[in-house]
């Protein structure tokens, strides 16, 4: 019994990481209806930025966030205003194609720069530290990851619903033309949304790199987990995205408990079941 409880608890904590993968994806889709195929590769890019920063400066990955977050945010703003804004319009195909191309480019640039060798961010003692709780051994890093995920979602929720920038995001999301009449520069608002999304992506990338090894090709898998968490939770609902990540994580760890080969499959099955019976996700906010 304790083993099953353990599987569920580990799954919940893993779900925090998936929610971080998903939050940026959800935010971008919510504000500008852009499905970012390169999102997973941007997570991996952030992990590599973390690698370079920690190795060159000899600092802890968490400290490296102080550099990687602004770097990714700046990259996001420039990427949005320089490239992605040009693809947005009535047709949903151009942004899909362009971000798909971007995904290929990022993977190949990383391959050139860092080779295909698996890398890992060294978190030191925190990686192996654990706390005992009612017979369960909980890793400090997964606990911290989950705590950070909750904090990030709470911050985004506050930003969207209690600040003037959040009002701008929601107004532009509702009606771009009228929002422009109110004085919002759509291109700038979209740039800020992408900057915010990639700042979250930086956190996700660093935590990913501390948890497992990564190489330039693993972005696609992260994208799928992020997507599944968003869809399970329901589009446009940030807390739903956290719930979606948790459901996906629990499905994976329970699947792995039954048979180690079933980890990924169980997650996908959980996603399909939700999609089949609740196609708007479990906690939809936007009904389209």
């Amino acid at each position, binding site marked *: 019994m304790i083993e099953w409880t353990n599987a569920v608890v580990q799954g919940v904590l893993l779900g925090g990481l998936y929610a971080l993968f998903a939050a940026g994806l959800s935010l971008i889709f919510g504000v500008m209806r852009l499905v970012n195929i390169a999102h997973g590769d941007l997570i991996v890019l952030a992990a590599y930025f973390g690698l370079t920063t920690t190795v060159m400066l000899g600092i802890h990955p968490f400290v490296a966030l102080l550099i990687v977050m602004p770097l990714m945010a700046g990259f996001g703003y420039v990427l949005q205003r320089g490239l992605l804004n040009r693809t947005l319009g009535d047709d949903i195909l151009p942004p899909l194609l362009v971000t798909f191309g971007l995904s290929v480019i990022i993977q190949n640039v990383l391959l050139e720069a860092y080779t295909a060798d698996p890398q890992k961010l060294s978190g030191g003692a925190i990686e192996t530290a654990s706390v005992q709780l009612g017979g369960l051994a909980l890793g400090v890093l997964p606990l911290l990851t989950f705590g950070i995920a909750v904090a990030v979602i709470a911050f985004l929720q506050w930003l969207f619903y209690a600040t*003037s920038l959040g*009002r*701008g995001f*929601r*107004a532009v*999301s*509702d*009606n771009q*033309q*009228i*929002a*422009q*009449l*109110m*004085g*919002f*520069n*759509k291109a700038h608002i979209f740039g800020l949304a992408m900057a915010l999304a990639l700042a979250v992506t930086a956190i996700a990338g660093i935590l990913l790199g501390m948890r497992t090894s990564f190489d330039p090709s693993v972005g696609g898998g992260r994208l799928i987990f992020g997507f599944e968490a968003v869809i399970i939770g329901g589009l446009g609902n940030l807390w739903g995205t956290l719930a979606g990540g948790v459901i996906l994580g629990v499905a994976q760890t329970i699947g792995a408990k039954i048979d180690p080969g079933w980890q990924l499959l169980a997650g996908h099955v959980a996603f399909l079941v939700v999609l089949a019976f609740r196609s708007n996700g479990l906690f939809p906010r*936007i009904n389209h």
Partner: protein
Amino acid sequence: MSDPLLSLTGLNAHYGDFQALYGVDMEVHKGEVVAIIGANGAGKTTLMQSITGLVSNQPDQVRFRGQSIGGLRADQVAHLGLAMVPEGRQLFPSLSVHENLLVGATVGRPGPWTLAKIYDMFPILEERKAQQPSTLSGGQQQMVAIGRALMANPDLILFDEISLGLAPVIIGEIYKALPGIISEGMTAILVEQDISRALEVSSRVYCLQKGRVSLQRRTGDVTRDEITAAYFGVTA
């Protein structure tokens, strides 16, 4: 006469592939209320979109306070002091009534209009400020749309079909509030299907027909026959 607040010179505007306006000339002076009337498809909406910057034009074709704005984006025009109450109200559905009003103040222009003053003029909105706009009646939604535009403290406010789809008694109430709004030193352009309403509150009237100005007069001087001719393109 002083320089006009807004002037259109030979404005040719396109709506997609279709040319909607042909050489429209128009002047609006400070403190005026100008009515624009015309049948469906006469080009009224395109005219509004050209002035607000939603449709892009040659810079010199639209001038506001002496500045060429025809080539500016809508958000840049908004910052210069031009606001619109759009046709069909078009409130932000995921924002509360209160937030819709706050969004109107994005341009950050100081002036007589504040949240307190809007709530003073439309007390029902304060009662419903936490609600989503979709839960309000059509007339209340129109009050939010007007309040949202006023929150920008514009020099020029455009009312696009504010009576469309509203019950006559509600239209009466909205129009009762107009003089108070305009007396704050604001200049207004009023696009209306309801011609008699438009003439009641305006000092000058332009009539559009098939993308051209077919009539311009002081409201007091205009006759019913002239309007019929300009509106439908027939000579009585």
